[in-house]
C-alpha cells in the first residue's frame, strides 16, 4: 500500500472556508410569500456535499427551507436543482469543488412545490402514462413455474444501459424545447421509448412508437441543442438515442 493511501482521509483536503449560499425562496402555498433570494453563511466541513450543507442550514438556521433529498447517494434522482445555474444532483455535489458563493434555484419547467422542491414525480408520471413506459406483452398470464425466456446477454446489458435513467428531470430542465412546449416528452421520454424499442419482450412496432412520439412534442420537437446529453448525471447516451429514434420515426413518417 502506498503512503498516500495510508494518509489520505476521504473527501479531500481539510479547509474551513465560509460558504455563502444564495437560495431562491418562494412558497406558492403562502399568499404572502414573494419570490426572493435569501443568503445563508455556513462554515465548510470536510467532505461536505450540498445535501449536508442544506440539512445543516435547515436544522440550525432556517427550518422553513424546502428541498427534496431521499437516498443522498446519487441513486434516486430526487434532488436535482439549479446549482450555479446548471441542473445537477445536489446530493453528490461536493462543496470543495466550488467557489465559496453558491447559488441554488429550483428546476424550471416543473411545478414548484416550494423553494428548491419541484414536482418531478407528477411530470414523470404523466410522461409514463402518455408514452406507456412498460413492456407491452402478448400473453397476460405466464406460467411462473417454467424457466424464463432466454435473452442475449449483450442485449440485456444494452437495455440496462438505458434503464439506468433516474427520472431526475435534469434533462428536461436543461432543454430548450421543454421551455417552449409544455407537452414535450424530453430526453427522458425518448430514452425510455428507445429502451422499450430495444426490448424483444415488447411487441410494439415502430408504427406504434410513431403514434407516441412522431410529432413536435416528441422526436421532431428536439432542436438538437443537446444540453440533455451534457448534463445527464447518469451519463446516458442521449444524443445517439434521440438521433437514432428520430431517424427511425422519420422513416415511418414517410
Amino acid at each position, binding site marked *: *500500500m502506498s503512503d498516500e493511501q*495510508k494518509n489520505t*482521509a*476521504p*473527501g*479531500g483536503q481539510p479547509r474551513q472556508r465560509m460558504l455563502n449560499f444564495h437560495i431562491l425562496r418562494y*412558497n406558492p*402555498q*403562502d399568499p404572502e410569500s414573494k419570490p426572493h433570494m435569501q443568503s445563508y453563511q455556513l462554515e465548510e466541513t470536510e*467532505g461536505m456535499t450540498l445535501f*449536508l450543507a442544506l440539512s445543516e442550514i*435547515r*436544522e*440550525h438556521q432556517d*427550518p*422553513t427551507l*424546502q428541498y427534496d*433529498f*431521499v*437516498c*443522498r*447517494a*446519487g*441513486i*434516486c434522482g*430526487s434532488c436535482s436543482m439549479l446549482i450555479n445555474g446548471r441542473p445537477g444532483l445536489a446530493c*453528490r455535489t*461536493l462543496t470543495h469543488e466550488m467557489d465559496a458563493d453558491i447559488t441554488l434555484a429550483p428546476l424550471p419547467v416543473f411545478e414548484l*412545490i*416550494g423553494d428548491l*422542491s419541484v414536482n418531478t*414525480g*407528477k411530470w*414523470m*408520471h404523466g410522461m*409514463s*402514462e402518455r408514452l*406507456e*413506459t*412498460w*413492456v407491452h*406483452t402478448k400473453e397476460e398470464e*405466464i406460467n*411462473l*413455474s*417454467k*424457466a*424464463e*425466456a*432466454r*435473452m*442475449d*446477454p449483450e442485449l*440485456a*446489458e444494452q*437495455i*440496462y444501459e438505458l*434503464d439506468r435513467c*433516474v427520472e431526475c428531470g435534469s434533462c428536461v430542465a436543461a432543454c430548450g424545447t421543454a421551455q417552449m412546449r409544455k407537452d414535450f416528452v424530453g430526453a427522458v421520454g425518448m430514452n425510455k421509448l428507445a429502451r422499450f424499442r430495444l426490448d424483444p*419482450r415488447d411487441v410494439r412496432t415502430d408504427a406504434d412508437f410513431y403514434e407516441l412520439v412522431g410529432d413536435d412534442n416528441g422526436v421532431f420537437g428536439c432542436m438538437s441543442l443537446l444540453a440533455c446529453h451534457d448534463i445527464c448525471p447518469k451519463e446516458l447516451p442521449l444524443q445517439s438515442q434521440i438521433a437514432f429514434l428520430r431517424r427511425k420515426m422519420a422513416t415511418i413518417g414517410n
Partner: protein
Amino acid sequence: MKVIFTDVLVIGGGLAGLRMGIGAKRRGHEVIVLSLVPPKRSHSAAAQGGMQASLANVIKGQGDNEDVHFEDTVRGSDWGADQDVARMFVNTAPKAARELASWGLPWSRVKPGDRQVIINSQKETITEREEARGLIAQRDFGGTKKWRTCYVADGTGHSMLYTASDRAIGEGIEVHERTEAVALIHDGKRCYGAVVRDLITGELRAYLAKATAIATGGAGRLYRVTTSAVICEGIGHALALETGVAAVGNMEAVQFHPTGIVPVGILMTEGCRGDGGLLRDVDGYRFMPDYEPEKKELASRDVVSRRMEEHIRKGKGVKSRFGDHLWLDVTLLGRHHIEHNLREIKEICESFLGIDPAEKWIPVRPAQHYTMGGVRTNHTGESPHLKGLFAAGEAACWDLHGFNRLGGNSVSETVVAGMIVGEFIADFCDKPENGVDVPMGLVEEFVEREEAKLKALLNGKGTESAFKLNTEMQEIMSHSVGIFRNGKALQDAVDHLQQLLVRSRNIGLVSKHPGANPELVAAYRTQKMIKLALTVACGALQRTESRGAHAREDYPHRDDQNWLKRTLAFWRDEKSTLPDLEYETLDVMKMELPPGWRGYGTKDYIDHSDTAKRMAEIDEIKKRMEGKSRHDIQNALMPFRDKLPDVLRGFNERIDEPLSK
C-alpha cells in the same frame, strides 16, 4: 372532513407496496398507494447487489434449489426465522424473478463458455454451460452455499423498482404521491384505514379501506450512521405500535452492513465482496481468513461486521478524522469488471470520496443497514392482533429474517411477500363480511385527534427542538444499541430515551406554517421515532443472549433453551414511556431445521432441550423416506405448501430439474 374510500390502502410505494397493490388490483379490488415521495424514489432503488432466487443457472449455482436456499436463510437468521414463512419464500422467489423478467426487467444473463472470476483472491476460470445461454445469471453473496443472487449489474433494486412502478402505472394503480399516513383508524379490533396528511398542502384526509397494508420499509434513521435513505424513519412501524393493539416484533434485531463508506455511510454493495473484493486493515493485511477460515469475507453480515469492529478494537483500524476505519479492496477485480458490474460503486467513490476504486482502496466501516424487526404478522401478512391490518417487506416481521438477514434476501422478500400477501389481501377483500362498515363518528374522532396534535405543535408553547431531539436519539442508538451491546449501556440508553420521549411532548416550532413545513414533519415523526427506538433498546436490554445481529458482550452465547423466542412490543398506554414486551415461543418440534451451528461465527451455544429429540425424529423420517423425492421428504418433515396461495404452489423448473419429473 375529506373522506376517500377504496378496497385496499397500501402505505408505502416501494417494491413491497407496489407488488401487493398489483396483486390485489389484478384480483379486481380498487387500490390506492400512499407514498411520501414519487414511488421510483423509494429506498428499494438502493438495493444494488441483487435478489436471491434459486434458479441454478450458473455453474457455481448448480445443485441449488429451494432446500439449499431454505437452509441458508434459516442459518443466516440464527434460527430466529419462522420456518414456514422461509419455505413459502424460497418456493416463490424463483417465480418472482421470472415474473419480473416477463415484465421487462433487464436481468444480467449467462454467457456460455470460459470466464475469469476471482474466488478467495485467486483468479479462476469457470465454464458456463451452453444449456444456460441467455438465462438469468447469479452471483455469489455472503452466507450462501451456492451462487444464487440474480442481478442487474449493480442496479438491481433500481431496475426492479422501475419495472414494478411502470407496471403499476400500466395497470392503472392510483398512487397518491407526497402523502403521509399519520395514524391508523381502528376500533381496537378492526383496522379501517388511515388519517393521511398531504405533504404539499398540509390537509388531513381520511382514507377508508377494507384492508390496510403497511409497506414503509425500515427504520435506519433511528441511527446516526446508516446506509438508509432519509425517508427510512420507521414511521410505518410506529403507526402500528401507536394503535396500542398491534405489535412490532424483534425490534432489537438490527443489521449492520460491513461496508458503509466513511464517513457518510453510503452502501458499498455486498457484490463487491461477492465478486472477490477483500477487506484489509491498517497494514494492508487481509484479516478475515484469521477469524472466519471457511467463509472469510463472505460470512453472514452480522458476523463480518462484528469481526471488523473486533479488529478495529485491536488497534488495526486506519486512523482518520472521522474515527477508525478499514479498507475495502476491489482493485484486484480489474477496471473492466468495476466499470461494468460495479458501476454504481465507481460513481459513488468518485462523487463522494474523490477516488477511483479500480486504483485505490475504499474506506469502510459497518453502518446500520436493515431492520429485521417489523409489524408482527402471521404467514398471510395480516396482523394477528388487529384485523384488516397487513404488512410486507422490511416494515414487517413476517418473519423471514429472524435475527439476521442474508444479503440478497431483502429485495427478494419485497416482491415475494408482495405476491403472497397481495393474494391474501385479495382473499380478505373477497369475503362479504369484510366490507367497510365504519362508524363515521370513529373516523371523525381520529381525524380530530390528529388535527389537535398538529395544532398543539404549531401553536403550543413548547421549547424543545425536534431536530435536536432527533440527533440525540440517533446518537444514543448508535453509541449504546449498536453492533456490540451490554446491559449497562442498554439500561443507560433506555433511561435516556425515556427522558427524550418526555421532552418530545414539549416540542416547539419556529415555523408556524400549517402547509408544507419540514419542521412540523420532523416534530411529529421524531415523537414516533423515539417510541420505536425504545422498543429496540428495551428488546435488546431484556434479551440476555447473543443471536444473529444482536450481540451482547455480557451474554455472548446463543441461548436456545431460554431465548428461542420472538419479542413482541406493544404500546398499550399512550402516556407510558416504555413499551410492554411479550414473547412468542418458537416450537423446535415443528422445525424442519432444528437449531445448530451456522457454519460460521461462534460455535458455542446453549441447546434447547427439544433439539436432540427433534433431530432424532427427523433422522427417522429421512431414513423411512429414503429414495423418495426431495419434495416428498420435505413435505414429511414440515408441510408448508397448503399455506401458500393456490397460484404460487407449483414447483420450479431448472436446467437440472425439469418440471415433468
